[in-house]
């Protein structure tokens, strides 16, 4: 058997070599002419162009981040309000949960043309669709989080003379927190996806529109740089959320 540290090094070596292999394949595919440079930019070119893209697409980045934040926050607030209202009674939860679960799984994207019809082609349809995408996974998680609350603990807290508000703050909410924070992750990704889809389709504001334009005009290196940049931004947003969730989790213990 290997020692733990040797095993950890092996794991790291495998991971690193896999990443290097992918990047090397990406490079070789261009160098040896497997793929036309019109359709694929080399890793180095992509990296170099990121700086230029950040400068050129400043406004689009700002537009996308703003739209995402507004959509995410709006969707989550609505989900919390409606979710907690439904959770007040177990019966209403049974009535609404299946419908709301369907809201997550059905292809809402086909509603996009309707949103454009109703809300125009400016920022509003982007935000509404992003918010709707965030709403459903979050509201389902709010309803499921209710299951995490142990009735015995609530009873105990009541017996100890805690008020309704205190019970909510000290018992109910902490018990729901893990499921709520995993709901935030789903909502965050759904909102990003929603915002980007409508931006791509409308082709007016934001990174979606910017990437679309780059693809249409065959500015290949810029486009790959923009895609890598956007992907990096989404990873950063996810990490930020993860740290926030962990911070609250630690506070809970």
């Amino acid at each position, binding site marked *: 058997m290997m020692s733990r540290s040797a095993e950890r090094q092996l794991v790291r070596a495998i991971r690193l070599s896999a990443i290097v292999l992918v990047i090397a394949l990406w490079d070789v595919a261009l160098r040896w002419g497997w793929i036309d440079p019109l*359709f694929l930019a080399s890793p180095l070119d992509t990296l170099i162009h990121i700086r230029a893209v950040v400068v050129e697409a400043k406004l689009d980045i700002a537009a996308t981040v703003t739209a995402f934040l507004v959509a995410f926050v709006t969707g989550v607030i609505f989900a919390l309000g409606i979710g907690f209202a439904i959770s007040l009674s177990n019966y209403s939860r049974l009535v609404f949960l299946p419908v709301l679960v369907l809201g997550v*799984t059905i*292809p809402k994207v*086909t509603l996009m043309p309707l949103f454009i019809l109703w809300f125009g082609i400016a920022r509003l349809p982007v935000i509404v669709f992003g918010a709707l995408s965030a709403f459903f996974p979050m509201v389902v998680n709010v309803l499921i989080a209710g299951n995490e609350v142990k009735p015995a603990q609530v009873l105990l807290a009541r017996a100890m003379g805690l008020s309704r508000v205190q019970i909510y703050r000290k018992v109910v909410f902490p018990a729901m927190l893990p499921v709520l924070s995993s709901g935030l992750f789903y909502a965050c990704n759904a909102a990003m996806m929603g915002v980007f889809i409508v931006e791509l389709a409308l082709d007016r504001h934001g990174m979606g529109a910017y990437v679309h334009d780059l693809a249409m005009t065959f500015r290949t290196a810029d486009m790959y740089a923009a895609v890598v940049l956007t992907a990096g931004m989404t990873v950063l947003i996810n990490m930020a959320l993860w740290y926030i969730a962990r911070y609250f989790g630690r506070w809970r213990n």
Partner: protein
Amino acid sequence: MTGCRVPPVLARWAIILAVLGLWEAGTRLSSVSSLLIVPPSLILWNVARIAVEAGAVPDFYANALVTIGEIAVAYALAALIGALIGIAVAGSRIIGDAFEPILLVLYAIPKIIFYPVIVLMIGTGYPAKVIFGILVAIFVIIFNTTAGLRQVDANYVRLARSLGYGRTKIFFKVELPAAAQTILAGLRLGFGYTIIGVLTGELLVVNAGFGYLIDWASVNYHTAELYALIAITLVLGVLANSLVSRVERLWVK
């Protein structure tokens, strides 16, 4: 809950019917343009017309078949590749530790960002939609397969080994059945994601399928047909999801 005599299913349908009734009354009585919103009865009428009348929308059945074919191919590949990767990741701790962080980062990135890249690399035809469908669906299948296999009680495997089972036999007779519930849940979620991915792809790069029909109705302001087509895709999504859950329940029990 002793006070509520009405079963939740009935209450759910009553609410849905009430919403449809309000929608019908609201659109009939108010002066909102029929370009923006049409009553449910008209949507239903148009669904019937599209299904029966050949010229209601261009080549309805041919386009529906395109979409269904793309979904079927994308799902088959996503399920197969996803399950294999999941088995590989769960099968060896070193491979799991090495690749899981990479997979998690990829999972966190909204896949829609890569759609312009896919289209640039392999064109606008159906392979782009299939690959995008796979990309959207595969991660939940991978992670559920891994999680399911890791949950399997190590004592089962030890017992099977002591009974002289070989590796393959242990995998198919012990580990896979024990992990089936979680794996099947992943396959169900993946199916929903495949549908979402394929329809998104069709709506963003329009040339055939439901995406084409919806785009046709929307750019020509055939609002009633647009609502009907959206209703058809949403209902198909609901039906497909409930079909898969039924298969899942059949298998698990």
